[in-house]
């Protein structure tokens, strides 16, 4: 009887997991592998596409556009401390010191449920050269501060960093709040009795206690910077001025839909996958190896 149950177990498991695996393979891995395969060809849909080896990758890596966009990605990632620290501090403030924390969390969360297209249109109206912000600044005599927020290359990326913070802070607060609620309250009370101040409780108790959630949030943000900026950029700046606010996902879109250059778009997509794997896969493997070594 027991032998029979053990024999059925793998089949049952396969049956239960199989559909999900097939679905993921069909939707995610299949197209990725296909694009990866095509990236080694002079890919012309519906026409002969000769094998070109690494030519597409060399073209992309040597192009000024790609280098500029990778620099943009790097600059945007510099916003990471801001995107982590601000929601963390808000979470800690809402943890104890504020009345109706749920209401505040909801208020912070609202921007996260707005579509990027809507947010883009809203902020384009606010930050355009003749937008509400500049009009207001001129009205109160601060003409010198009425800048081309979305049209000056040196301003547009910082503006986007702040907008991402505005849009995402609520999600961070919710994730951190959920993690913090699992930390025993006694820890904070004991620390307070021992004379630990607000900053000490945040940095010595809260942060170490929810570090997994913080790493999760960091991961989400990095992935979002590489993969989910399209809606914002498309509506807010169109990638401009020039390439100043173009992100890699927007560049791939442009390469296919504006230029019709499929082979380099495929190479760019694969490079994007490789960068993300390097950012997450390598550190994860190192951590696993260290943990194995420790155990």
């Amino acid at each position: 009887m027991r032998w029979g149950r053990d024999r059925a177990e793998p089949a049952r498991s396969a049956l239960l997991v199989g559909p999900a695996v097939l679905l993921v393979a069909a939707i995610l891995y299949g197209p990725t592998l296909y694009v990866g395969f095509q990236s080694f060809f002079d890919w012309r849909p519906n026409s002969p596409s000769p094998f070109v080896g690494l030519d597409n990758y060399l073209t992309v890596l040597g192009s000024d556009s790609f280098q500029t966009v990778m620099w943009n990605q790097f600059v945007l990632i510099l916003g990471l401390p801001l995107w982590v620290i601000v929601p963390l501090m808000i979470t800690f403030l809402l943890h104890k010191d504020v009345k109706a924390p749920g209401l505040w969390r909801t208020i912070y969360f609202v921007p996260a449920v707005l579509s990027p297209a809507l947010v883009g249109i809203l902020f384009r109206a606010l930050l355009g050269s003749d937008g509400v912000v500049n009009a207001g600044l001129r009205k109160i005599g601060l003409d010198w501060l009425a800048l081309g927020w979305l049209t000056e290359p040196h301003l547009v990326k910082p503006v986007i960093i702040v907008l991402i913070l505005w849009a995402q802070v609520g999600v961070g607060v919710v994730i951190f709040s959920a993690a913090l609620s699992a930390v025993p309250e006694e820890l904070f009370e004991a620390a307070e009795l021992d004379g630990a101040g607000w900053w000490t409780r945040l940095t010595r108790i809260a942060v170490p206690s929810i570090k997994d959630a913080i790493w999760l949030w960091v991961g989400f943000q990095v992935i979002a910077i590489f993969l989910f900026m399209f809606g914002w950029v498309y509506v807010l700046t169109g990638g401009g001025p020039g390439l100043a606010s173009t992100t890699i996902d927007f560049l791939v879109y442009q390469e296919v839909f504006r230029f019709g250059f499929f082979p380099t778009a495929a190479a760019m997509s694969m490079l994007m996958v490789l960068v993300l794997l390097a950012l997450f896969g390598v550190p994860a493997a190192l951590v696993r190896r260290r943990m194995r070594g420790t155990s």
Partner: protein
Amino acid sequence: MTNTIARGLRLLALVASIAVLAACGSAEEGSNSTASNGADDQTATTPAGGSGESVTLEVWSWLPNDHENGPDTYAQIFDAFEEANPGVTIELTASPYTTFWDSWRNASIAQVGPDVISMYGGATAGGYASSLVPLQDLLSPETAENLRFIDSTVSPDGNLYVAPAGSYAYYLLYNAQMLSDAGLDPDQAFATWDDLLATCEALSAQGTTPFASGWSDGYELEGYMYIFMTQLLDDEGFESFVTGQLPLTDERFAEGMNHIVEMNEAGCFSEESLGMTMYYDAFDEVIAGEAVAFPAGGGDTAVSAEENNGEGSMVVAPFPMVPGSPHERISDAGPNQGWSVTNWAVDQDLAVALIEHILSPESQQLLWENTDLPPNRSDLAVESDHPLFDDYLGIIEHPTNRTTFMAFTDAALAIFQREASNLIAGRTSVEAILEEADAAQQRALSELGQ
């Protein structure tokens, strides 16, 4: 109990497998039936109605959204075709302009989608050569003889993928009243290129915006390039350009783009224009009387501007000729757009018949009356009851006109659009833009086999 669960799961798996196989079978049948609507059914679905079997032609276009009367007018045109061809149904998908091109790119990759589409000729259509049917041998002699701007519409590979419809010309729209108010002579202000630059300097010194402009969407740069390149290229250069032989690094392209820089240095454009769009900020600016002049491409703009600024306030004139032009007078003018048949069309003969119907004098007359789109037929002369529109029609009709618009590949235009604001802000050079645009142009042309 465990055995019962295992048996149940096995049964479920069997049922699921059968369902998947059945679904595959139906999908296959479905695709077969779609295919059978294609070539096999051609005899049954002739324009005359054939055996009466029903056929649906899917049409994709951005044009109906271009005018408030567009949807009704195209509905009338398609109704007339359906009436003349019993059993034929036209399904129109009228998309916004940008959505149209994204959807079309997807359709052309998948080789699935509309039977008939709106399309630009020349290099744009050439970029979709694997998805479009060459029409040069399919259009009736009557249609082919009467369509204008065929030469500009032929793609670099020598095929005519687009039957050109409607017509336009770039012209200079200016506010004579604002010029008089500024103490300038409206008849002389834009008579020559030097006059234009002097007018810009005088107006900007007074704090008046000379040219309505918006550079952030980048379309304005390409618009000026069409105007100037049509003026600067001689017959040989034009022929060389439309056949994909003339690189954008040719000095005449730099000359053309330098004229835009020259206008900028003369103060023709406002500082705010860097953050504004051509669509629709610049249009709004000239219509609202907040700028003196605008390089317009449709008669509607002139009429709207005059309605807003008072009778007799606006003037429609050819754009002044730039120095070095081998022509005495020429305007960038050509077909407004055109119609193409996809090579997966359910019935190509029927699709061509539909295009012929859209291009017919009756349909073009209807479009002119309802949507102000001037026809593109030499056998159909139209008149407007508005003097400004009549002036515009006069500019379109000038015999020397032609367009360089369709010789630029989409890839090169994308570079122009991207770098427009950088050029005006002085953050990049004419040479750098043209070098990058030429690389994109050559790569796009090489994919056409040039």
